[in-house]
């Protein structure tokens, strides 16, 4: 703790120049075993090279730097000897330190004491752009973000070749020094949104940012809400389309997921594949997803409420099925439901923690063996088993993983309320949920936007997805400076020139 403090104090202190602090820095650097320093005899006396082996590409060092550097006479001639762009010569100790940690190597000669040359030779060991796994789509682009910010920016910029696409770089984290880029299209995105995002990011007080999900949790409007208020996506095409709608995107170095804001509840149930399908099919799939959410949250609580309090509601033909399946079970419906829900959560958690191949086995063991065995042993009724399994399945249809987790979590308060006061409890919980959602905002914009407040402009692409010519305007929620995407009249008028004309 004390050590970090001293480092930070040095950073914050006045710019220290001269040999004395540089010597101190050198001392500090040499303390680490992966910092390498060696001295040559060159044309102009002693030549010293220092770098972190873990950060430097050996190939550049061997091919471009070492063969050329021997004839170095003055540190200012460095750029004419080495075929690497943007060589800096400085005496700023802080800059030297930062550059060394960012994959530069330092060169200095006894002749030009106090002047340090910095050569960029970072090792590129990020993984290749691969197929999106979380947001897989059968049709459409198959590239997803990787951990390198530069690669990710490249993926977005390729899709938006515009000078208006601007990025603001912010460094966050006192020890992780994570580079974060805020992306927006100048002239489309609302300046207020950009301002809010950059301000919230630069105000952050945190030591480490290891993933973009840190930022989601830290900068969203209500941090206690189980609902994420920023979409995270691994698809560059989704980010590009969000930017085109006047939204702001955040890319984090080291995170394979970008963030989009402002956003609304309905966007969390939009799979990007929807845009690659015919509008009728896409609308159907979206409706299925919304049904799945409601089903997943409500079906088990309704089962518990009806079986515990409202036997009158059971249709007469279903009574015998329900009662026979529950007959051998000694537990009240709530315990039965909780046990099964817990079992499903255990299976999910075990599957998530284990390697894929073992995970599959867990699915089979849990799903089939435990399921049938517990029914046969008379611990759970098979009707509830079906219901809980369906509800779990339905919760997995949510395209945004974070939202899927939320859906699974908010089922439990519903369950308890259903047990305490029956369907009234389910209704009360639902009211609480609605109130909470109504109070939520994303970058200060209402979270239920196209529905409440009702905005037809956004409604065409929310619960339903109308044909692309109908989406000629940017959604009202992003409050775009220019809300016209394209000319709707021209888009709807399809004219074929005939041979005879």
């Amino acid at each position, binding site marked *: 703790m004390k050590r970090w403090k001293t480092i930070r104090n040095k950073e914050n202190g006045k710019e220290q120049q001269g040999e004395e602090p540089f010597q101190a820095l050198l001392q500090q650097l040499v303390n680490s075993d992966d910092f390498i320093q060696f001295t040559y005899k060159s044309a102009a006396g002693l030549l010293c090279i220092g770098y972190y082996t873990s950060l430097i590409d050996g190939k550049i060092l061997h091919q471009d730097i070492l063969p050329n550097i021997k004839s170095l006479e003055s540190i200012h001639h460095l750029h004419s000897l080495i075929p690497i762009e943007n060589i800096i010569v400085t005496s700023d100790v802080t800059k030297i330190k930062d550059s060394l940690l960012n994959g530069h190597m330092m060169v200095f000669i006894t002749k030009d004491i106090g002047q340090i040359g910095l050569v960029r030779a970072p090792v590129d060991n990020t993984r290749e752009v691969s197929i999106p796994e979380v947001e897989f789509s059968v049709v459409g682009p198959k590239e997803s973000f990787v951990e390198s910010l530069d690669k990710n920016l490249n993926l977005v910029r390729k899709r938006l070749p515009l000078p208006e696409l601007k990025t603001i770089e912010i460094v966050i984290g006192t020890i992780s020094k994570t580079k974060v880029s805020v992306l927006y299209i100048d002239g489309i995105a609302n300046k207020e949104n950009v301002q809010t995002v950059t301000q919230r990011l630069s105000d952050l007080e945190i030591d480490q940012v290891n993933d973009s999900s840190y930022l989601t949790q830290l900068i969203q409007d209500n941090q206690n809400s189980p609902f994420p208020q920023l979409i995270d996506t691994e698809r560059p095409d989704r980010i590009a389309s969000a930017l085109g709608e006047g939204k702001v995107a955040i890319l984090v170095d080291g995170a394979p997921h970008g963030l989009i804001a402002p956003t609304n509840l309905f966007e969390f149930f939009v799979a990007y594949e929807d845009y690659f399908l015919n509008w009728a099919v896409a609308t159907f799939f979206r409706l299925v997803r919304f049904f799945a959410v409601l089903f997943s949250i409500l079906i088990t609580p309704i089962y518990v409420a009806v079986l515990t309090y409202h036997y*009158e509601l059971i249709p007469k033909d279903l009574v015998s099925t329900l009662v026979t399946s529950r007959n051998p079970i000694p537990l009240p419906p709530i315990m039965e439901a909780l046990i099964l829900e817990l079992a499903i959560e255990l299976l999910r958690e075990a599957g998530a923690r284990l390697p894929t191949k073992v995970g599959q086995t867990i699915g089979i063991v849990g799903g089939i063996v435990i399921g049938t065995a517990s029914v046969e042993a008379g611990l759970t009724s098979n009707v509830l088993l079906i219901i809980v399994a369906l509800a779990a399945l339905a919760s997995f249809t949510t395209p945004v993983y974070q939202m899927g987790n939320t859906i699974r979590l908010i089922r439990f308060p519903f369950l308890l309320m259903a047990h305490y*006061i029956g369907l009234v409890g389910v209704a009360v919980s639902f009211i609480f949920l609605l109130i909470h959602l109504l109070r939520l905002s994303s970058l200060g914009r209402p979270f239920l936007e196209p529905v409440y407040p009702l905005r037809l402009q956004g409604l065409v692409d929310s619960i339903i997805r109308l044909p692309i010519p109908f989406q000629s305007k940017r959604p009202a929620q992003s409050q775009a400076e220019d809300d016209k995407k394209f000319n709707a009249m021209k888009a709807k008028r399809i004219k074929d020139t005939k041979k005879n004309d």
Partner: protein
Amino acid sequence: MGKLRINIGLLAVSATLLTGCMGIETQVVDELQLATAAGFKHIKDDEIEATISFPVFLTDKTVKNATLTATDTLNKELRDRQNLKSEKPIVSGKLEVILFDRQLAERGFFDHLDSLMRDPSIGSKVFVVVLDDDPKDVLSKQYGNKDTGIYLSNIIQQNIETGLIPKTNLHLFTYNYYAEGKDPAIPIMAQSRDGVGIRALGLFKHDKLVHQIEKDELFFYKVLFDSNSSGETMAIKFNEDKKASIINVESTRKYEVLQPMSNAEIKIKVKAKMMIREYNNGLLNKDKMKEMENFIKKRFEEKSAELIQQFQQKGTDPLGIGEQVRTRTRNWDKKKWDELYPNIPITVQAEIEMIESGLIN
């Protein structure tokens, strides 16, 4: 942070205080005795015998019918007496059929219905039925793999949907009971050699059974009763061995009341499209179809008039003719109508069209 702490505190306090309010009695479905049918039988004076039937669900997925019987004067007292003998608490939320024996129906049973209507867990779609036999006897028998309540309810349901019984339930019974110018009509069920079934339609004056429409006449009643109806079937006999069966494809019924609240004639106009289902009088041709149309028209008008006359004599109005008059006048007077009703000439005019005669190859 302070606000959050206050909120959590409030939540904790209200949760502890409200647990007292949450002591709602649970009614877990498999820990209840779900009565599906209740039968009432007149014993003497005020005393009635009540039998409930309920399903017992066995683990091999079969359902056994069981009954409990008690005798008392008050309906809810009966429940308490039955509860004394029951393994699980008896609840009436899944009641499907309420049966009254003929004796009780003739004495009037509205007082007994009262307790059933007051109970919010009893649906208004429960069937009310008159039983020609002993309710205890009928309810204690099991028909198929279901309890007798559901079985009886299915019989009635099926006949309302596809057969000759007009729509009936607890709500409609009480509606017609209180309505001015209309009287209730509910099915009469009885045991026969091959089980239990609907025998006739019982007609009520207030809550007393006064008359009944037999099976053969239900066709005419149903067509007259519903303003739009379809699917009713009728057999007609031309003579000893020449018969035909027809089905009503679509019929409409209209009233013509020229001078309401007077002795003037009331006309009921029926337009029906019918189809021949069975015919054994040689080849059908256009002339014969025409002949049949006339035959049915004559028969329909005669039979309907006869039925209405019976209603007038018994002082019951299941067709709701009074209600038709009431909607056409501002001088409605219940007492005056009751005096007028038996003597008003009511005629039926039928217009029959045979649209199909089936397919013969």
